[in-house]
C-alpha cells in the first residue's frame, strides 16, 4: 500500500543525518508600499508562525481614549467587508491553527501558528483586515463589555496589578507609559466606535507594520505570498510621532495602594536608559547584567540574601527591559515574609544595592549570568514562536532584527566594573518611585450592592 511505503520512507528519512541545521539568518524584504517582511527559516517541524506587528501601542494613545489600541485589537476579529465577524478565527481554526493577538505599550501584534502548508490562508486574512475592517456599533457595543470585564479580571481584582498600574502613573508624569495598556475604566466607559475607527484609520497601514514569518518555509515563497496579498494595499501618511520626553524626576515618589489581600507588596523602580543604538550603547547592557546578578537564578543576590539568609522576603525579583520605544525603568519587586514590614524589606533591598555600589560584583556571578545568556541562545531556538517574537520586538523598538545576536555579544562583553558603575549612576533616590500594597481584610470593603430586584436565582 502506498501508505505503508511512504511510512517506510519516512522512517528511513529519520535515520539520515540532518543536514544544514546551522541557525539560518533571517531574511528581509520591504514591499513598495512600505510593509517590511522578515522570514526566519527553521525546518525542525512542519509548522509556521505568522505575526503581523503594528507600530502602534498604548503609548500612541491620548488621554481620554486610553485603551483604544487594545479595544481595536479586539475589534480586528469582528469582520471585514468580505470576512464576516468571527470568520477569521473560524477559518484559522478549521485549518488546524492557533491564533491570538496582544497589545502592548509599544505595539499591537496578531499571530497564527499553522501547519506549514496553511500559511497562505493567514496572510490572506491578515492583509484583508489590515485594510477592510468593518467597525459596526453593534459589535462594538458587545465587545467593549468584554474589554471592561477583561480590565476587572486583569487589574481591578488583582492587587499586584493595581499596584503596578498606580506605580506607572506615578513614575511617569508626561510620557504615555503612565496609563495602562488596558485603559482607564472611565475611558473604556466613554469609548465609542468612532474612537476605534479613528485609531484604525490612523495606524493600520502596510508602512506601519512588520510581517514576521518563522518556521518551515522558504523565504522566497513567503516574499511572493506577501507581495500577492499585502502588495495591493496602499501606504498611508502616518501622523507625526512627537517625541514625548519625560521631564527629569528629581526626588523619590511614594504611593500606597489598598486592596483586599493578606501580604503587603513592594515595587521599586528607577528611571533608566534603554537601547537606542545596539552597537554603541553600553549602559543598558550593564543594567541587564545587573538585573541578572540580582535575581536571574536561585543563587543570585536577592533570593540568596533576602529570601534565604535574612529571610526578610517571601520572594524578591529584579527586572529591566532594554528593548522598548519609551523610557526605561529598572524595577525590583518583593513580598515581605510574615511579620516583616515593607519598610524593613525596602531597607534590606537598599542595603543589597549599596553593597554592589560599594564593592561591585564578582566575575564569578557575572559569568554565571552570562552562562544563562549563552545557553538561552540555544534554548530559544526550541520555539519558533519565540524567535518570531524576538524579531518583532526588536523591529518595533526600532533596533532592527539583525542586531539580535549583536545584543547577545554585547551582553557577554559586559564587565564587572560596568555593572557597578551603572548601579551607582542609575539606582539613585532622586530617580526612584516606590509603590506599596497595603493589604485590606476582605470584610473591610463592602461589595458594590447590586440593584435591588434584579436577581431571581435559586
Amino acid at each position, binding site marked *: 500500500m502506498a*501508505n505503508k511505503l511512504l511510512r517506510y*520512507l*519516512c*522512517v528511513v*528519512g*529519520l535515520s539520515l543525518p540532518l543536514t544544514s*541545521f546551522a541557525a539560518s539568518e533571517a531574511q528581509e524584504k520591504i514591499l513598495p508600499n512600505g510593509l517590511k517582511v522578515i522570514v526566519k527559516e527553521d525546518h525542525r*517541524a*512542519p*509548522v509556521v508562525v505568522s505575526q503581523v506587528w503594528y507600530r502602534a501601542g498604548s503609548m500612541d494613545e491620548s488621554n481620554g481614549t486610553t485603551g483604544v489600541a487594545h479595544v481595536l485589537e479586539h475589534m480586528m*476579529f469582528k469582520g471585514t467587508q468580505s470576512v464576516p465577524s*468571527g470568520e477569521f478565527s*473560524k477559518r484559522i*481554526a*478549521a*485549518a*488546524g491553527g*492557533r491564533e491570538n493577538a496582544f497589545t502592548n505599550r509599544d505595539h499591537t501584534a496578531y499571530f497564527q*501558528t*499553522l501547519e*506549514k502548508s*496553511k500559511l497562505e490562508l493567514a496572510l490572506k486574512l491578515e492583509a484583508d483586515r489590515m485594510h477592510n475592517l468593518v467597525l459596526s456599533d453593534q459589535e462594538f*457595543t*458587545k465587545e467593549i*463589555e*468584554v*474589554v471592561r*470585564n*477583561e480590565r476587572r*479580571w*486583569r487589574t*481591578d*481584582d488583582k492587587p499586584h496589578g493595581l499596584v503596578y498600574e498606580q506605580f506607572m502613573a506615578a513614575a511617569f508624569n508626561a510620557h504615555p507609559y503612565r496609563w495602562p495598556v488596558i485603559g482607564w475604566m472611565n475611558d473604556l466607559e466613554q469609548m465609542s466606535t468612532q474612537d476605534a475607527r479613528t485609531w484604525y484609520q490612523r495606524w493600520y497601514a502596510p508602512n506601519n507594520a512588520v510581517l514576521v514569518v518563522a518556521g*518551515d518555509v522558504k523565504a522566497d515563497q513567503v516574499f511572493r505570498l506577501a507581495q500577492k496579498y499585502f502588495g495591493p494595499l496602499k501606504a498611508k501618511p502616518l501622523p507625526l510621532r512627537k517625541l514625548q520626553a519625560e521631564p527629569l524626576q528629581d526626588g523619590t515618589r511614594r504611593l500606597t495602594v489598598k486592596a483586599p489581600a*493578606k501580604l503587603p507588596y513592594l515595587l521599586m523602580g528607577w528611571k533608566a536608559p534603554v537601547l537606542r543604538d545596539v552597537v554603541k550603547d553600553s549602559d543598558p547592557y550593564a543594567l541587564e547584567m545587573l538585573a541578572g546578578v540580582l535575581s*536571574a537564578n*536561585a*543563587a543570585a543576590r536577592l533570593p540568596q540574601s533576602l529570601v*534565604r539568609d535574612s*529571610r526578610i522576603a517571601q520572594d524578591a525579583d529584579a527586572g529591566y527591559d532594554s528593548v522598548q520605544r519609551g523610557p526605561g525603568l529598572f524595577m525590583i519587586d518583593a513580598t515581605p*515574609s*510574615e511579620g516583616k514590614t515593607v519598610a524593613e524589606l525596602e531597607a534590606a533591598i537598599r542595603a543589597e544595592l549599596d553593597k554592589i555600589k560599594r564593592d561591585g560584583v564578582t566575575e564569578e556571578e557575572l559569568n554565571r*549570568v552570562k*552562562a544563562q*545568556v549563552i*545557553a538561552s541562545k*540555544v534554548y530559544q*531556538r*526550541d*520555539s519558533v514562536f519565540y524567535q518570531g517574537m524576538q524579531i518583532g520586538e526588536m523591529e518595533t523598538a526600532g533596533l532592527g532584527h539583525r542586531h539580535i545576536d549583536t545584543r547577545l555579544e554585547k551582553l557577554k562583553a559586559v564587565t564587572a566594573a560596568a555593572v557597578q558603575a551603572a548601579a551607582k549612576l542609575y539606582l539613585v533616590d532622586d530617580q526612584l518611585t516606590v509603590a506599596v500594597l497595603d*493589604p485590606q481584610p*476582605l470584610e473591610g470593603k463592602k*461589595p*458594590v*450592592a*447590586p*440593584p435591588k430586584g*434584579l*436577581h431571581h*436565582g435559586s
Partner: protein
Amino acid sequence: MLNNFKNLWGALLACLLVFSVTSVNAGVTIQSWQAKSGAKVLFVENHDLPMLDVAVHFDAGSRRDIPKRLGRASLTVSMLQLGAGGLSEEVIAKRLADVGAQMGASFEPDRAGYSLRTLSSAREREPALQVLATVLTAPDFPETVVQREKARVIAALKEAATQPASIADKAFSKAIYGAHPYGLPADGEVEMVAKLTREDLLNFYQLRYAAASAVVAIMGDVTRAEAGAIAERLTTGLVAEVACEDIPNVEPLAKAYSERIAHPASQAHILIGAPGMKRGDADYFALYLGNYVLGGGGFDSRILKEIRQKRGLAYSAYSYFAPLKQEGPFQIGLQTKKQDADTALKVAQETLVRFIQEGPSAAELKQAKNNIILGFPLRIDSNAEILNYLGVIGVYDLPLTYLDDFPRQINQVTAREIQDAFKRRVHPDRLVTVIVGAPEK
C-alpha cells in the same frame, strides 16, 4: 527487558494526512525500556539542537497526601533541590547556573518530580545531570530550610485565601471530590503545614520516591546508549519499591450542590462541574472532541460564543476535562461582573443542557475535527512539548502509539457517540456550582 521501537509522527503526518512528505524532520520516534533500577524510560533522540531535556516523575503528587498531613507531598518535592548530598541549596543553584542549566520541580495530583534543561555538550551536561541525580537520590531536608519553607508556604496559603480565583478552586475541588485525595488542597492547609516535621518529609520521600514508580523522560541530543546511562544514573540510588496503598474510587456526585462565597471583588468567579474522566477512559476521545464544541475550542465553542461573543458577559469562559489516573475534574468556568453573575450562570447552564440534549451539529463536529487533526503538528513542534508527552505517556501507561493514534481516534468519533458519552457522563442536575463574589441573596 522491554524494548519497544516505534515510529510515530513522521509517518502519520506526512503520509496519512496528505501533507508534504518532506516533513521527515517532524518525526517522533519513541524508544522505551525499563532501567536496571526498575524505572520506566521513554526517550526521543534528536540532534537538531545541542540541548537535552530530562524529566523524572514519581507517584508522589497530591493524591498521596493524607488529611492529617496536608501539604506534605508538595513540600517534599519543593525541598529536594534545597539541600542534597551534603550540598547546600546555594551550591546546587550555583552549579546549575554556572552551566546555564534550568531545573524546576513540578507537582500535580498524580505525579511530582523534576525537569532539567541543559546544553548537551559534556562540559554543561555532566554537572547538570549530576545535580539532578543528587537532588533526586540524596535529598537532605535540612531542618532550618524546612522551617523556612514551611513559613513561606503558610504565608502563600494565607494570601491565596484572600484571592477569589484561589478561593473558588479550593471550594470547587472539595465540593466535587469530598474526602477523596483529589479534593484535598494541594499545597495544604495552614494548621497542617505548621505541624509538618522534617521526619514527615523524609518518610514520605522514602515511601514515594521509588525507582519502581519513576518515569524518566529524555528528549534531545544524546544517543540511546547515553540515554540508558543517564536513566540509570538518575534512578539507581532510589529505594527500589514503592509502597502500595490503594486510592479510594472517585464517587459520582449524588446531587446538585451550590456554594456562594462572599468577596469584595468586582467580578464573580463561577465554577461548575463534577468528576469527569480518566486517562485512557473508554469515552476519552468522544468527551475530548465534544468538549471542543462545548467550551474547549475557544471562539469555536458554544460557551464562549454564548457568554462572550453574544453577550459580552466575560473575557474568559471555557470548559475542560482534566483526565487523571482516576476521574479528573470536568469544569466550566468564567468571571463576570458581580451584577451579571446570575445571568451568566444561567446562560452557562442552559448552554450545557442544550449541548447534552442536541450533541454537536455536523458543522461543529467537522470544525472540531479539522482543528484538532490538522493542528496536530503544532502539539509536537518543540523538544519541550515532546518531553511533556513522554511524561504523560509514561506516567499514565498510555501506549507508545499514543501520538500516532490520537488524530486517527479523533477522526473516528461520531456526533452520536459524543452525545451518548455526554449524556452518560455529565448530569446537569447533579453538578457542583461555586460562585465567589456572588451578589448576596
